[in-house]
């Protein structure tokens, strides 16, 4: 990400340029800043991560692995995978469609639309759960209808999926919009002029251009979908073996004084976060040029 847009060699390798000192800081300032940055990252980000693994392994590997063989843990894993398997593809399709409409066309009210898509980002997770209770709860907007037809939305898988979709709603769109804006419309226009259908142009021109940004967005969306706590906690009902996701299972184990198991399950989610970051870093390293524009912002 740092060595972003570089179709040409970095100016740092250029020999005919003023001495280093005028375009960068003095060495001691440099090292001081590096130290501050690293200390800050270590204190706020790395230490909590280490804590998770240290606590999970506090009683050895046996206790660690035992946490995953329990039926409740397994059903939580299954539910979390199910929810992500529905929520992530949904947001993928939505994100691509939204980015296409917003990046490839000029129309009025675009800023408002982008803001509305972003809205779930800044809605408190608790509120994200609450709104679905207000719509689908038995005293909610559609409550009487749902009760009459015996359809269970909240306190069941559909409600958990909905809350997860809401929370991760902006992820793919937010990533793709600037990326596709950056790339403009010239290539697609060329393909269309040469007689390609719109769908064909999308598949052969647009998609290859955005694939790494898209993959990155999907990864983050997936990590967030699997890790959502607040919103899911409001709509889940906490029925063991039925509506407990992994993050909720972490809380349950924690509340049962089973700290090792709790941190063990937490470490699974932390591991997922690490894998996500590793794949992301690998993509950046391997396809730096392709995705440089896409990592502009989240």
């Amino acid at each position, binding site marked *: *990400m740092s060595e972003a847009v570089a179709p040409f060699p970095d*100016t740092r390798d250029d020999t005919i340029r003023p001495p280093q*000192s005028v*375009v*960068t800081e003095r060495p001691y300032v440099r090292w001081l800043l*590096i130290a501050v940055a*690293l200390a*800050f*990252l270590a204190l*706020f980000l790395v230490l*909590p*991560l280490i804590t998770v693994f240290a*606590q999970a392994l506090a009683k050895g590997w046996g206790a660690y692995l035992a946490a995953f063989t329990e039926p409740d843990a397994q059903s939580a894993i299954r539910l979390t995978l199910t929810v992500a398997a529905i929520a992530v593809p949904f947001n993928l*399709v939505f994100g691509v469609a939204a980015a296409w*409409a917003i990046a*490839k*066309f*000029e129309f*009025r009210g675009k*800023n*408002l*639309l982008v803001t*509305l*898509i972003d809205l779930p*980002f*800044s*809605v*408190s*997770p*608790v*509120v994200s759960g*609450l*709104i679905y209770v*207000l*719509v689908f709860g038995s005293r909610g907007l559609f409550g009487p209808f749902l009760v009459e037809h015996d359809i269970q939305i909240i306190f069941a898988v559909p409600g958990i999926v*909905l809350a997860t979709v809401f929370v991760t*709603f902006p992820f793919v769109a937010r990533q793709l919009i600037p990326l596709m*804006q*950056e790339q403009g419309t010239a290539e697609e*226009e060329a393909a269309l002029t040469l007689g390609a259908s719109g769908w064909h142009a999308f598949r052969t021109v647009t998609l290859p251009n955005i694939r790494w940004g898209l993959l990155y967005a999907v990864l983050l969306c997936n*990590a*967030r979908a*699997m*890790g*959502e706590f*607040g919103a899911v906690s409001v709509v889940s009902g906490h029925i063991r073996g039925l509506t407990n996701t992994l*993050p909720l299972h*972490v*809380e349950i184990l924690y509340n049962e004084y089973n700290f090792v198991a709790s941190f063990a399950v*937490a470490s699974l*989610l*932390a591991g997922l*976060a690490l894998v*996500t*970051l590793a794949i*992301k*870093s690998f993509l950046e390293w391997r396809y730096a040029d392709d995705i440089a524009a896409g*990592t502009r*912002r*989240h």
Partner: protein
Amino acid sequence: MVEPPRPRRRFRQRSVIPGFGLTLGYTLTCLGVIVLLPLAALVAKAAGLGPAGIWAVATDPRVASALRVSFGVSLLAALTASIFGGIVAWVLTRYEFPGRKLADAVVDLPFALPTAVAGIALASLYAPNGPLGAQLLKVGIEAAYTPVGIFIAMVFIGLPFAVRTVQPLIAEIDKEVEEASAILGASRVATLTKVVLPPLIPAVLTGFALAFARGVGEYGSIIFIAGNLPYVSEIAPLLIVIKLSEFDYEGASAIAVIMLGISFLTLLAINLVQAWSRRRFGYV
């Protein structure tokens, strides 16, 4: 990027690219069903109280104090995250040092780490008997179960926003401009403050606003580490949960709408800043 002039009278500008109706229609449908309809239900519920009722909720001392805690601490945390996030972004982009890639990858951790996991990890670190909490206690700072704990959790979740919005802009700074400034005799400090930093300001503001909005709404990581004491360390989202436990749906909705209103304005401001800066600087 060259932006065509905005059409004033027509809804959208003509284009040879197909799929506008389909994709915009799909986007609006999803947005309507997933986001707008439920939020409208929330507003409708709160509206049941009437404007006077909502005002009464907002000015109820306990609610007002929870909103103050949420917004106040989040402001401080976003400020901290922006300052240190700026340094981190600068260091990661401009300097070469061992472990730079690793440090760069770590920045995204709070995006990917579930908030509940972050919450219990932070609580066990900063509790009075935790490794960091014990040290802080020696210098007289009680971290966990006080507003300081809320602050720590909010910095944690806000940091990636602060770093990631600024980083690409730092990478794009044209070194030749810096060189020109230096050759013309400006000191390094003058170059930084007069040439390098000004174009970064919109991005820093964006990162700040995102971190702020995220911190205000945060629940999962905070309840584990905040003391949850009314008037001291009770955050607004917790008060929503409490109102729900009291079966006071209108009250909960009213707090939610108040938070939502402020967040929406914050986000709208971000997008305006971005649109403005794209016109002004040509990127973001």
